[in-house]
């Protein structure tokens, strides 16, 4: 091996000597990159047989009190770079062995070609994600992204097919950076059909400013597949260990599908505001607090949620007495149109506390996350511990406890408790 770098010999006592080398070939750039990860994730859930969502999804099956499920994922990513041109692709293959089925599905998360003739200018086309917004658990201004799961906010998401550009300008003075990102997002039966109404060319954009040491974004989406919407976000360090952030989104003519406790469905159209305020605080002992309040103006009120769960309970009782599942099917259809979204209520608190390397034991990070629906006072609490001490291996063990009264969001989830192990190998 040709080692052209640096060698350090450390002597620890007389008998032990170790050599550290920096092989310069490690720093040489290849024109291509291939990588990704392999993940295994077994989950064990303890079911709540009295819960509305158990009745909705398990009414015609008996899975016992506990439900084991097995997930595996292979995420591959590759890129080729030649001068100002870069081609990038990321695929995600999911294997799921659940109570419903065993499935194997590959999805192209991203696949795009970008041309960057100078650091301040780029144009690209293809499937990509943007991840707009400053919130950790929720992003009301992520107008061109799929909604993320607040329990797994760091996961990659599938993107949409777009054409976009990026222009950056740096300044001296209070305004240090200005960048503009225009996005074209077509929707047809063949392309981006799950984004919204077909046969529209949607226009979105983001203007970013670093102004007085504050990140500020102005964002919008218009074009017909979804109703027009606009918003802003910000992030700023108030002190060296305290960051505050927020998002505000205004959605025009938002359509909300509701179901009454007697099964009557209705739709309202109104302008709604979704917003979020949050902070990230790091203590001197390396404890990180992430706290967010999320006001989901497009969500369901406590009474609307109670009506939905009441209808499911009644539909289940009717099924038990008649064997007719038509009302349960109706509830399932309504769920797909809004009630089934993660955190579909109006008002939430999020708190995550993580302690880096407690007792100076490196690479171990315990954390606990709580999500509270402040209207019905139901909540989930997720303690976890992760370990990153082995190169390219990430291990995480987490448990989730869901609690709440009957007809509340977390009280009516299909499980009361779940425990999950995640083992990920990066290559």
């Amino acid at each position, binding site marked *: 091996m040709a080692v052209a*770098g*640096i060698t*350090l010999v*450390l002597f620890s006592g007389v008998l032990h000597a170790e050599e*550290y*080398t*920096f092989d*310069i070939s*490690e*720093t040489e*750039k290849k024109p291509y*990159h291939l*990588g990704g990860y392999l993940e295994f994730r077994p989950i064990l859930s303890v079911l709540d047989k009295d819960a509305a969502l158990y009745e909705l999804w398990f009414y015609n099956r008996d899975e016992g009190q506990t439900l084991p499920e097995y997930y595996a994922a292979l995420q591959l990513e590759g890129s080729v*770079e030649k001068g100002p041109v870069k081609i990038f692709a990321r695929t995600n293959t999911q294997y799921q062995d659940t109570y419903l089925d065993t499935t194997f599905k590959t999805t192209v998360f991203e696949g795009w070609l970008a041309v*960057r003739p*100078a*650091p*301040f200018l*780029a144009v690209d086309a293809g499937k990509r*994600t943007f*991840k*707009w*917004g400053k919130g950790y658990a929720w992003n009301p201004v992520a107008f061109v992204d799929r909604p993320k799961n607040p329990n797994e*906010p*760091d996961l*990659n998401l599938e993107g949409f097919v777009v054409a976009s550009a*990026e222009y950056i*300008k*740096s300044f001296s003075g209070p305004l*240090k*950076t200005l*960048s503009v990102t225009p996005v074209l997002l077509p929707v047809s039966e063949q392309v981006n059909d799950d984004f919204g109404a077909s046969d529209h060319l949607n226009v979105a954009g983001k203007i*970013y400013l*670093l102004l007085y*040491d504050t*990140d500020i974004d102005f964002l919008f989406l218009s074009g017909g597949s979804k109703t027009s919407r606009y918003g802003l976000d910000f*992030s*700023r*360090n108030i*002190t*060296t*260990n305290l*960051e505050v*952030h927020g998002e505000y989104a205004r959605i025009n003519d938002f359509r909300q599908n509701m179901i009454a406790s007697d099964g009557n469905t209705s739709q309202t159209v109104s302008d709604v505001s979704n917003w979020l305020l949050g902070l*990230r605080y*790091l203590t001197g002992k*390396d404890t*990180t607090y992430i706290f967010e309040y999320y006001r989901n103006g497009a969500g369901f009120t406590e009474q609307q949620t109670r009506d939905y769960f009441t209808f499911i309970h009644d539909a289940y009782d009717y099924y038990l007495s008649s064997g007719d599942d038509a009302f349960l099917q109706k509830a399932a259809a309504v769920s797909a149109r809004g009630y089934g979204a993660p955190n579909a209520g109006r008002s939430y608190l999020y708190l995550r506390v993580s302690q*880096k*390397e407690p007792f*100076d034991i*490196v*690479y171990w990070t315990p954390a606990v996350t709580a999500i509270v629906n402040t209207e019905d006072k139901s909540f989930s609490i997720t303690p976890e511990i992760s370990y*990153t*001490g082995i*190169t*390219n*291996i*990430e291990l995480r063990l987490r448990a989730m406890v869901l609690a709440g009264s009957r007809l509340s969001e977390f009280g009516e989830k299909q499980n009361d408790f779940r425990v999950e192990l995640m083992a990920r190998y*990066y290559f």
Partner: protein
Amino acid sequence: MRAFLIFLGLLAWAVPAAAIDGTELLRQVDRNLNPVSYESYRKLINIEPDGRKKEFTLFTVKKGRDKVASLFIAPASEKGRSTLRLGDNMWFYIPNVGKPIRITSLQSVVGGVFNNADILQLDYAEEYTVEKLEEQGSEYLLHLKAKTKTVAYDRIRLWAGKEKKLPTKIECLTEAGMLIKTLYFKDVKDFGGGIIRPAVIETDSPLYKDYKSIILVAKTKARDFKDEVFTLTFMPNLESLR
């Protein structure tokens, strides 16, 4: 007359020490460590008490007095992660998360003894004032105090060789004077282009007893960059600079 000559003699002996300006000396130390704008590769090695190691390789670019960015190029689990510092603003980008988040200088993005300030270090003279300068044999000892509260270490004691004006040891302390970590600079090498500096920085910390960290420096060279490289928007594209 005799008394006058003795006075002149004493003055001639005293002038070299008295003439040393601590701030100017600190600037020289900074310049001897790195050019004003440069690119460099570093390998960070965390060594656990049982001898197990974890290594990270970074590509670092810096421009002027307040712009620095680092890109992780190894291992695979960290590849593509990047950190950016623009004055007092710091961000961390993780490809999986897909967007930069604001961080603080004391947070660690790699675990172990290193924190962000070690990875995104600006010139010492940019962040510290010289409170006191001492001479200790063949070395100067500079007592530094952070200019603002945003700096990771409130106080620093920096030993630099008189001849090469390169640091040999740095102690990082809290405001109360508690030792956080010690950096030992070793293996002075010629990197070319007039850059002659330590290629190895060994770190230990009383907070991480029996743990040790090593920084190996390679391929440091002067290079100029567009200001737009040091922006939050450009962070996912730092690889294109290599």
